[in-house]
């Protein structure tokens, strides 16, 4: 009997080994499908989900192990995200595709402690100081937080740089006036200080911020305030849903101001909903092309899109493409972790993010913009591509795809700003 024990043990080891090879890799996906930011949360979450499903179907997951995607709708409520995180930590997820700023910032300490890479939909600059070197008050080291695209602050810096140039070109007299608009919430607040500081540096008059909620509503009085302040450039810090309300109210109130959207503040759906009120809004786009244009990587994008839309007719807004790029960064970092028989663990995935320079996921060339992460600096990119929403007609009839095809709505490239990698902008 005793002589059998080593054999049994060996057999058990082989069995578990075989099971491990087949075992699915658990990965969390936090979505906002029903909350204040669900207008953009739905296309982004759909992009992430489709990309991961495609990886499972076409590439047999990561290193032969399929991904077990645990997706949850948390309704943009940070406390719910925290309790969901605790459940995921029990399920030993190796990485999480996250979402909002409030919840991501609340979870930084947890993911750092549990060493779980967290790829957020929040581009808050506070998540970029991986080594905790910035020495800023209240900014902690965030070695496990990543995101795809320029940070909110950097995107706003890019827009302000353009705005200063735009003001000079227009030849209007005096100093331009800049105002920050958004809800009193971590996400719109995130780039506020950075933007106002740079605006002052660039010679803007910085006006007192205007608050409007993250939900749609009647913002006429805010627009009247905006008009009476005489602002020339206004940053819209919220997501598309409430920005539309502001744009429409300001159009009615006859406000003449150049609106600057944030990455989540404007998209094709919002242009359709806002109609002519959205005309002229300048905002950053994170991919090199948008749906309907062509690039080498768009073929893959279309294949992925067919996963949830077999007809291939659905128009995918910019956030869908960004969701795919973000998910593919995670997948490739996991592949790096799994290379040469390595285990797919949190720290190894994090190192996977550092393995490449000017990193474009393979198969997505010409769509996803290159990112570079280092152990000290998680600002993946400092290049801000600005587009202008152009609406030339009535948008109430027809789908987004038709309107885009008919050129009633289009996204017009404005400029691309390459910001310097200033160390004093790290984590801010």
């Amino acid at each position: 009997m005793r002589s059998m024990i080593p054999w049994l043990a060996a057999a058990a080891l082989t069995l578990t080994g075989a099971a491990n090879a087949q075992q699915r890799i658990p990965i969390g996906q936090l979505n906002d499908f029903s909350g204040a930011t669900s207008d953009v949360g739905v296309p982004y979450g759909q992009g992430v989900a489709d990309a991961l499903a495609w990886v499972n179907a076409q590439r047999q997951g990561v290193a032969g192990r399929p991904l077990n995607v645990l997706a949850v709708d948390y309704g943009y409520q940070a406390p719910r995200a925290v309790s969901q995180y605790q459940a995921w930590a029990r399920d030993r997820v190796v990485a999480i595709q996250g979402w909002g700023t409030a919840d991501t910032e609340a979870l930084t300490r947890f993911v750092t402690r549990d060493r779980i890479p967290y790829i957020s939909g929040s581009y808050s600059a506070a998540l970029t100081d991986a080594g905790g070197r910035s020495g800023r008050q209240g900014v902690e080291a965030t070695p496990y937080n990543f995101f795809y695209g320029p940070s909110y602050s950097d995107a706003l810096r890019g827009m302000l740089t353009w705005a200063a140039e735009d003001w000079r070109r227009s030849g209007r007299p005096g100093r331009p006036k800049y105002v920050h608009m958004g809800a009193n919430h971590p996400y719109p607040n995130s780039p506020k200080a950075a933007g106002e500081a740079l605006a002052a540096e660039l010679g803007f008059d910085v006006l007192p911020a205007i608050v409007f909620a993250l939900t749609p509503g009647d913002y006429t009085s805010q627009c009247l305030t905006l008009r009476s302040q005489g602002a020339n450039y206004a940053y819209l810090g919220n997501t598309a849903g409430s920005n539309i309300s502001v744009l429409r109210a300001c159009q009615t109130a006859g406000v003449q101001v150049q609106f600057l959207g944030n990455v989540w503040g404007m998209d094709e759906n919002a242009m359709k909903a806002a109609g002519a009120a959205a005309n002229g809004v300048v905002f950053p786009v994170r991919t090199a092309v948008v749906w309907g244009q062509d690039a080498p990587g768009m073929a893959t994008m279309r294949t992925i899109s067919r996963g949830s839309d077999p007809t291939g007719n659905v128009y995918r807004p910019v956030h869908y493409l960004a969701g795919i790029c973000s998910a593919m960064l995670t997948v490739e970092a996991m592949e790096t972790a799994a290379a040469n028989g390595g285990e797919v663990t949190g720290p190894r995935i994090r190192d996977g993010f550092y393995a490449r320079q000017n990193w474009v996921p393979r198969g997505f060339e010409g769509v996803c913009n290159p990112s570079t992460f280092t152990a000290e600096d998680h600002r993946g990119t400092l290049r801000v591509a600005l587009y202008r929403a152009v609406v030339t007609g009535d948008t109430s009839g027809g789908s987004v795809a038709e309107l885009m095809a008919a050129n009633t709505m289009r996204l017009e490239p404005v400029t691309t700003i390459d910001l310097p990698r200033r160390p004093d902008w790290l984590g801010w």
Partner: protein
Amino acid sequence: MSAMTPAGDYRTSYRADMTIMATRNSRIALALGIALACAAPFVLDGYMLDLLVMIGIFGIAALGLNILVGFTGQISIGHAAFFGFGAFASAYFHEHGVAVVIAIPLAGIATAVVGLVFGLPAARLKGLYLAIATLAAQYILEDFFARAQWFTGGVAGRMTESPTIAGWVAGRPESFFYVVIVAVILMFGAAANLMRTRDGRALVAVRDHYLSAEMMGINLAYYRMLSFGIASFYAGIAGALYAHYRLFVSVEAFTILFSIQFLGMVIIGGLGSIAGSLMGAAFMVLLPEVVEGLANLLTGSAIDRALRLGASISFLREMAIGAAIIVFLVFEPDGLARRWRLIKAYWKLYPYSH
């Protein structure tokens, strides 16, 4: 209560009339129940324990609201704000060097003080006026939480830590479960005893007929305020437990919907029933899980595709909460506690139940 005694009412003294546990069997059942609960972490997984912890925490808060609504007849649509105040207060105390086990009761007391302050005007209002005033209080307090950076951490919220007792850290559902059990026993025991005291009966008298109560020498304003204070104390304790369980407090959690959920717990459990508060909390915690389970069962089916169940799960949950409140009000206004008594009576009298 008479249904719980074997047959007839044999009580001959006031003392016997006031006992909490009427029979030996109910004492045994309680002891067994507690023992069984203590064994739960060895059998159940983290997910189930998490639900149980939430039931315990919400049960305490619901009990507080029940003392206000069910026993004193005052309505509050701002209970979640007091729950939130307790959570922020405890996190704040801990931030300033108070140990968690002390910060929790301290937060309860702080919340009680705030409750008394809010109860001061509330003592002069009743019925729907009070409902509207507390509704306003809910929005005002929410705004305060979002603004008071020094106290709440502002809109970004505040991180906090798990309770530690002599080196033992209650950081996981398995361990925190015991903290909650102790709190539940203490708080529910205290409430059961409160209702036997002069003050407790005075609260009930205020509810039943405030004019008669006043004529019998009960100071209405005092007892309404007291009731507000007690309710806030319970909400504060529950909120503090919540803070040190979730380890993160943010103003986003303490919305009007949360307040309404507490009221739903009280109504579904049974107005004026101590055990009912726990049952109502269990119902409210499990309801969304059941809804989600049902939606998951239908995943991929034609119904799912037609109704977009998967993407709408949070709306379905909210609808279930609203529907549950209405259904209970219309069909079972005395709540689960009455149903439970009927079931017990049925088995006690079996086979001669009528």
